[in-house]
Every structure is written in C-alpha cells, then in structure tokens.
C-alpha cells in the first residue's frame, strides 16, 4: 500500500535526528514528543469513514492535496483582506482585549496591555526544556495515541503559544489568539496552544482562525488546558473563516477541585470544521460546561465530538449544542459522557437541538452515555425540527416577511445557548451572523 501524501509530508518534515533519536541521545522533551507523534501518525494513518469516530467525516475531498507545511516565517507576507475582515470582525467584537496573532506562522503579540501574572510565551524547545509547568502540560492531555491529527500536530510541533495565568490572577481583558494564514497553494498549519491556569485564576480566551489567498488551508490545531483548583476558564473556539479553510481541532481540559472549564464552540462560518473536545473532571466539585452553536449553509460541515469524563465524585457537567442547518449542509454531534464507578453524586446533562432550514440539510446526532456509578443524575435529549409554517404565517400576516420571520424564529431557537456567551460582543457577533445568513439584517436595527 502506498503511503498517504500527508504521512509522507510528515515523514519528510520531521528531521532524521528526531526520527532516529534514542533516549540516550541529547534530544529533549520536544523531540521526544515529536518522535512519538510521528510514530503514532504513521501507525494510525488517515482515518476513513469506516472508523467509528470518523464515520460522517469525509476528509477525502481535501486530505490528499499536495500540502506544504508553513509553520515558520514566510517571506511573502501579504496579509490579505479576507483574513483581515473576519479577523477584525472577531477582534472588534471583543472590544479591548489582549491580542496574540500568529500571522503566517509568525507570532505577533502586543503584550503592552498584559497584566502582571499573565504569561504569554512562544512555545520553543527552550521553554519546553526549562519551564516545569510547560513540560508537564505539553502532551499530557492531547490524545496522541488515538487521534491521528493530534499525532500529526505533535510530530510537526514547532511553534505554539502558552497562556499561563498565575495564581489568583483575574484577567479582566479577554485574550484573543488569532491564527491568520494566507495561502496561494495548499498549506498545512499545525498551531498548538497550552493553557495553564493556576489556582484561582480566571480568564476568557478566544481562539479563531482566518484564512485567505484562495488555496486550501488545512488547520490541524491542538489545545491543551490544565485548570488548577478554583480556577475558571472560559474558552471560545470560533470558526468564522473563508471557504478555503479545513479545520480539525482537538481541545482537552483537565479540571481540578472546584474549578470550571467552559467551552463555546461557535461555528458561524467555514467550509469544514471538526472539533473534538474532551473535558476530564479529575477532582471533586469540578465542573465542565460545553456549549455550541453551529450555523451552517450551502455545503458546510461542522462536526462536534465531545467527551466529558466524570472521574471522581461530586462533579457537574452541562452540555448544550444548537445547530441551524441550511442549504445542503451537514451537522454532526457526538456526545460521550463517562461516569466512572467511583464518580458517585455526578450530575451530567446533555442536550443537542437542531433546526433544519432546508430539506437538503442533514444532521447526525449521537449521544453516548456510559455510566458505571449508580448514585448519579444524568440526562440527555435531542430534538430536530423545522420552522413552523403556522408561526411563519402568523408573522407574515403582521407584515413581517418570511426571511425576517425565519431569522427571528432562529434567534429564538439559538438564544438559550447564546445567552451563555458571557462576552456581549461575541454574543452579538453570533446574532449578526444569523441575521446575515438569513438575509434579515433589518432585525438588527
């Protein structure tokens, strides 16, 4: 069997000394990780739809393209307007914020407004060697052995960002990581983000990608978060990108005693989005909140695979995803909840609701609850529906046209989860997108 071009690319990119390095040699933690990543990626290869976890994820149309890898400084820096516009829109929705940008592989962080106790570092081999926290967190959460693209990202690990919040720091300004890529030929990027929240820290972290140039950008992102006791992190993954982007991401969070991790997966633009999110509630009284909005049109595809792992007693998780699918788009939701035998007094709730705006749109939803403890409260629910014709006629009979009526009903549908977005500007951005997608911008007045 011939080697897949992407595997070949990875093999080509990982230097020989890393591939062959043995533990005795001088290579450090980063090289060891890269070697493991490459080994796992080669072992697993590209998943096909025969693979249970990738059943609906059709990678075929783009995965075999002839990618070049562009982690490092490009000579040509034509920050194009597309990437600019969507990036600026997210940035302006945030108002005042801390901005970290990876523009064509180059980190451009404006750190003038970063408060004391917030460290924003570039992930270099130096840092990985010398910073104990970073060394401990990097590679500790991401499923290198089971997710082929996490393995790929790890094999290529070369640049990334560390956001560390020191003990007790409440970062008032939202922190925005924006990955901006201009591609004139098929390009692979592999950003990595580490979030280290020490005891009692609190922050909003917004993560978005922006593609321009017209050629396909395959964005393979890995985020690992370690949330210490009593810390509270709200993480927003925004897909608001051009048609040229193909995004595959894995986010993992380890949540400790009395801490919370809140995730918002906001897919409001982008041709192909596959989000894997795994939250491990690893100490008592930790909490995980998983929210998602997928607004899809045309032939867009968004696939949310979530796992909440209740490892210990007295933890709480709450999951609410809403999908609005128009055109011939497809939305996938796969939600796993594990409640381990010792995890008594768990409360875990999951729901996934879909509004189909077109008869050609498709939805695949699969809750998977595996509960081994007996004293728990768990529930899941899924609904799927269309806008109600009676309701539309009622609106129209009051002078409100069909597009506006649909937009208002869609607003109503999505508001339950949109209300969970604590950053007002982001919430408005989502609502604006809905209005724009449904050609009903008049309702924004």
């Amino acid at each position, binding site marked *: 069997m011939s080697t897949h071009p992407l595997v070949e690319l990875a093999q080509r990119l990982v230097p020989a000394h890393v591939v062959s390095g043995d533990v005795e040699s001088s290579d450090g933690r980063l090289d060891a990780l890269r070697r493991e990543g490459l080994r796992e990626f080669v072992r697993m290869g590209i998943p096909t739809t025969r693979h249970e976890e990738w059943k609906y994820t059709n990678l075929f149309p783009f995965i075999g393209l002839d990618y070049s890898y562009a982690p490092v400084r490009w000579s040509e820096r034509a920050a194009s307007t597309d990437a600019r516009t969507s990036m600026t829109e997210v940035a302006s929705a945030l108002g005042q914020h801390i901005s970290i940008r990876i523009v064509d592989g180059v980190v451009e962080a404006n750190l003038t407004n970063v408060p004391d106790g917030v460290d924003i570092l570039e992930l270099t081999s130096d840092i990985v060697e010398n910073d104990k926290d970073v060394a401990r967190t990097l590679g500790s959460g991401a499923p290198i052995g089971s997710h082929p693209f996490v393995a790929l990202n790890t094999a290529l690990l070369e640049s990334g960002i560390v956001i560390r919040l020191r003990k007790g720091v409440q970062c008032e300004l939202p922190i925005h990581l924006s990955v901006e890529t201009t591609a004139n030929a098929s390009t692979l990027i592999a950003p990595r983000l580490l979030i280290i929240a020490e005891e009692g820290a609190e922050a909003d972290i917004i993560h978005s990608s922006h593609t321009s140039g017209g050629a396909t950008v395959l964005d393979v992102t890995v985020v690992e978060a370690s949330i210490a006791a009593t810390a509270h992190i709200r993480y927003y993954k925004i897909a608001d990108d051009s048609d040229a982007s193909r995004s595959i991401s894995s986010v993992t969070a380890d949540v400790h005693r009395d801490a919370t991790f809140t995730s918002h997966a906001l897919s409001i633009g982008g041709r192909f989005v596959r989000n894997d999110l795994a939250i491990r509630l690893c100490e008592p009284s930790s909490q995980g909140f998983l929210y998602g909005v997928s607004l899809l049109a045309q032939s867009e595809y968004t696939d949310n695979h979530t796992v909440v792992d209740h490892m210990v007693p007295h933890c709480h998780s709450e999951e609410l995803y809403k999908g609005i699918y128009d055109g011939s788009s497809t939305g996938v939701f796969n939600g796993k909840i594990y409640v381990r035998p010792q995890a008594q007094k768990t409360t875990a709730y999951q729901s996934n609701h879909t509004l189909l705006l077109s008869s050609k749109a498709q939805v695949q939803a699969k809750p998977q609850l595996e509960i081994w403890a007996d004293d728990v409260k768990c529930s899941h629910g899924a609904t799927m529906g269309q806008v*109600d014709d009676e309701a539309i006629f009622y609106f129209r*009979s*009051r*002078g*409100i046209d*069909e597009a506006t009526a649909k937009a208002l009903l869609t607003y*109503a549908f999505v508001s339950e989860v949109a209300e969970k977005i604590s950053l007002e500007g982001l919430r408005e951005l989502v609502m604006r997108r809905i209005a724009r997608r449904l050609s009903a911008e008049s309702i924004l*007045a």
Partner: protein
Amino acid sequence: MTPLLQITNLHASIEDREILKGIDLTVNAGEVHAIMGPNGSGKSTLASVLAGREDYSVTEGSVLFNGKELMELSPEERSREGLFLAFQYPVEIPGVSTANFVKTAVNESRKHRGQEPLEPAAFLALMRERMALVEMDPSFLQRSLNEGFSGGEKKRNEIFQMAMLDPVLAVLDETDSGLDIDALRIVASGVNALRRADNATIVITHYQRLLDHIVPDYVHVLWNGRIVKSGDKSLALELEQRGYDWLKQEAAVEA
C-alpha cells in the same frame, strides 16, 4: 367612492375540496359587517384567504382591497397595506417576546409607508397606551408571544396588535370566544375605540352578545361556502332565536 373591500364570486379550495363557493361581499369605509354561520361553513376559510394563507387556492373570482387585487399580494404586503386578521387560534411563538414581535411588525409597516422606525422610548410609550386600551398588563411585553397565555389573554393580545398596526380593514375571527363577560366588554370597547370613518371591521362570531357591544351595520350568514342571507343587525337577533335551520331550508329551496 371605491369600496374598501369588494369580493366578487370568490371560490377557494383546499386539497381539491371546494370550501368557498362563490362569495360576494362589499365593505365600505366606516362600516361594521358581521359574518355568522354554522360551524364548518367557511368563515375562517374566508378570513384566511383574505389574509393570504397559502394552503388555500383561489380558483375563481376577485378581491379588490382599496382598488388593488388582493390575491396578487403576499400576506406581508396585505398587512402593510392595512389588512389585519385577528386569529381564531393565535399561534404561540416561544422565544420571541411580544414587544419584539410588535416592534418588528410596526416598523415593517412604517418602512412600507416610507417612515423612519420609531424611537425606542416613543415606541414603548405607544405600546403601553395601546395595551391600556384592552387592559393588558405591560408585563406581557416581555413574555414570549402568546406562550402560556390564557385563551382570553391571547385574544386581547390580538386586539392589542391591531391597535398597534392601526389597520384599514380588520377581520376579527371569533375574537369573542374564550372571553369572560368583562373581557368581552373590554375587547369590544377597544375595537370600538379604533373605529373611524376611514376604516372598517368584519367580525366573525357565533353570538349576539358581541354584537351588543360592536354594533354591526350589516349581518351576513355564511353557509356551505356561500352567503345565503344578508340583513341589518336585527338578522343576528333573529338567528339567536331561530337558529340556522330555517335558512338552510330556504337556501336549499333556492338552489
């Protein structure tokens, strides 16, 4: 003077079943018409066809509204031109507040007339004033439209919307059903307060008691898809006493 509404030989069917079988009706500005008739005779169908419900196909006839062919307009255009239907069964819309719904509706009509949207403060004041007309509590503004409203509250909400949209022609489909005696009086006086020389009202009802409050100039009886009898307000009193059987027999003889 052009009539406000002129229906000529209107036929309409649903799923190949003819429900309206040749309706003729003329309504002039300043008039109140009552339409009565047994269950299933086609009263709500007529109201729906006027409002533009797409389930019905109009197979024959014409409807002129202010001289314009109504059947060529979309439901929203009809509303913006000044037609209002108070639904027999108002729809519940979870998640859309009454205030937001009414605001959107009013601003669409204003836009149609080339007017600017109302300022939020002015709008709120107007809403409060018009709610007072039907003695509706302002707390309803923040609630989801009709969701969990009692039958009577829904009907008041319809008349509140009518007051906000200030239509040229209002069609009230059994707005009295489900109302208690006090609410009936309140809703009726709300409707009366909105009457002017340049607008008109069609009330569909089964009961004389509404017509005690909203006094009609004409009463029509719809039976089996046709208007089989028209008269003045005394016809309603006669129906109250005699029921519909004598009319059905008369109609059968004529046919």
